[in-house]
């Protein structure tokens, strides 16, 4: 199993959520986060000077899936979260060793 961690634009969240549901990926955990990318955020120009807003609101999705589904999940997220502009976000995959369903106690390794 893997944990797919996707950091996306908040305004794309609905689209991603729906697309994942359609493909059958229902389980997910969502956190409101702030992120700084490699461009150090957004530059705003003011009379000569400029300020940078470096921490921008993002949504973090954590989705645990079996190894075989990782690529489809990534593809789905990418397609629905992309605007093509800086700040679209990242997806990271982390190994998961064990998963437990609290309601039933059932364990998947």
């Amino acid at each position, binding site marked *: 199993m893997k944990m797919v961690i996707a950091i996306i634009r908040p305004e794309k969240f*609905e*689209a991603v959520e729906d697309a994942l549901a359609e493909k059958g990926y229902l389980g997910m955990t969502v956190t409101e986060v702030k992120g700084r990318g490699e461009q150090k955020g*957004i*530059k705003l120009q003011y009379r000569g000077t400029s300020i940078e*807003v470096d921490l921008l*609101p993002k949504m973090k999705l954590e989705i645990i899936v079996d190894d075989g589904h990782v690529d489809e999940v990534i593809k789905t997220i990418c397609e629905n979260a992309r605007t093509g502009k800086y700040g679209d976000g990242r997806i990271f995959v982390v190994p998961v060793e064990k998963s437990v369903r609290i309601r039933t106690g059932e364990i998947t390794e």
Partner: protein
Amino acid sequence: MNSGDIAWVMTSTALVLLMVPGVGLFYAGMVRKKNVVSMITLSIISMIIACVVWVVYGYSLSFSGDVSGFMGNLDRAFLRGVDISSGEPIPEMLFMLYQMMFAGVTLAIITSAMAERVRVSSFIFFGVLWLTFIYIPFAHWLWGNGWLSKMGALDFAGGMVVHVSSGFGALALAFLLGKRYGYGEHSIEPHSIPLTLIGLAMLWFGWFGFNGGSALQANDIAVNAIVVTFIASCFAGLTWMAVSWIKGKPGSLGIASGVIAGLASITPAAGFVDVAGAVVIGVISGILCFIALDLRIKRGIDESLDAWAIHGVGGAFGSIALGVFANPSISGYAGLMYGNANLLVSQIIAVIATITYAFAVTFVLAKITNMIIPMRVSIEEEYVGLDISQHGEVGYA
């Protein structure tokens, strides 16, 4: 002069002032977190601009003399000759201040159409123009012995002066400024309904001064005004709730919108209609403004916080309705129901005139403003939010 009347109009003045941040908070709860400061601040700035304009020339051009029915003169510029102890029925200075608050609230209402996208410097420039070329003429036309009032049109507390002007102005602005980035593509949710309801509380409360104070005395007309105002607001709130329930759930923002719709609709009529008139005006305004709001959304027009659907449509409807329901036993004016068609005709003409003028001139003023200081911020500034980009602040840490 009478201390009771002065006490009441001073109280009313304070109540109307409270409506300014009231509008700001009402609106601010419905925008995204990143624009909460901006939305409240636009209202505060509206009041500040209105005060300066009013002191310098606004009051004079509205209420001093008359130049061919269109505007007043500059005799009272800088409040020259405005007295604290004489006036009828209250000192002129108090009347001036009371009227100043109306200018502030009106400008605050129109910020609806600029929500989450206006450049603050440009708003200030536009605000001065708008007060000068729309609010002041309207105040003169209907309250300062201008052509509409000479024609016999009535506007008790600002159905046209305040609500039609800002509502239809907002509609023009919405067309000109265009939609917020992403509007219609992803949902833009109200970030804090409690904030909006705090704003509603201030507006509901403040409206006692808005309509009640417009009698300028603590007398039977004032009593009538607050009674019909309150009753209309409740019936409109109830109606909106019922209508929206049929289509889904009775949301708090719907009920609040209904209450405001009722208040805006009864405003022009509050000194002329009786309780029965208020009930009818309330119920119809709840339905009408609901339909208007629905229509605006379906048309994809981003008049973001519905000044048009609620204030514009409500104010226009109420201004016409008073031509129907005015009960001569209140203030001596009879509407159609009491056998007089003239009033209705004047009201219709006045509404058409004010709608047309407000829409067209707002459009032109915004065009002019745009040429001097673009009204919309850049896409990056809009994305980051106006709080940071315009005010260098963050609403909630």
